[in-house]
């Protein structure tokens, strides 16, 4: 069977679902950040597939911007994680509840 747009979209959707599963069920902040990156990558794959199969370059240009924003997001997120670990000595997300009270 010819590999078409639907195959790439299937892979992208499954990757997004796996990342979503990780964000919801993992309890470590670093793993949650990694699964967020995975979801962003799934969206990138969908963008590139639509861009290629429509013969339009705007989607793949948008992927470039997504990658840049993801790099900035990871840098800030990991800095926050390190600061959080210095203050609270834990990275488990069900113990980081000081905004509740």
């Amino acid at each position, binding site marked *: 069977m010819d590999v078409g747009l639907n195959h790439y979209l299937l892979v992208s959707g499954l990757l997004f679902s*796996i990342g979503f599963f990780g964000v919801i069920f993992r309890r470590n902040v670093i793993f949650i950040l990694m699964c967020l990156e995975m979801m962003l990558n799934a969206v990138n794959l969908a963008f*590139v597939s639509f861009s290629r199969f429509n013969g339009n370059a705007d989607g793949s240009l948008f992927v470039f911007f997504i990658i840049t924003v993801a790099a900035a997001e990871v840098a800030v997120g990991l800095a926050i994680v390190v600061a959080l670990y210095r203050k609270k000595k834990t990275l488990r997300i069900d113990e980081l509840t000081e905004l509740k009270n």
Partner: protein
Amino acid sequence: MDYFFYIFAFITLGSALAVVLNQNAVNACMFMIIAFFGIAALFLLQEAYFLVVTQVMVYAGAIMVLFLFVVMLLDIRGEHSLRPRMRSMVFCSFLLSLLMVGVVYLFVPQQADLPFQAFSDQTVSAMAPVDEPLAYAKSTKSFGLALFTKYMLPFQLVGFLLLSAMLGVIHLSRRNSNEDTEESLS
């Protein structure tokens, strides 16, 4: 060509599952690098060559090195990786399985005349000519040309975003080190 797609898709999805289910943080980072390389190979199969290089350099190079640094600095021990059972967990897994079923049902390749297929091959070929895909972004030169003419303003804004992210990271780490020295002094 089609075999390559199946191989790389299998590698990507398998290592992504390994990231989610892994206990060891360093192993998870390594599987994440494999997943990023798999996605880069999927980009390569779609002839987005500049994005392949960007993906490998930025994601598999810079971002995962950053993750590995933080994992090794913080010394994360193996603990119960998944959250304990609760009502919202059951609800979330139900929603997630619904999402998976919907994704598979919509996007798995079917006959072209079935109504539930999201984008059949006929619609795509009616939208645009497939024989010349990505006509002006296949080469890095045209990619950069579009980046510096049509997308000049977002390009500048992304530069400012990176600058502000750098300043924010420096501020976040420096303020905490000051607090630590104050605590040790007092």
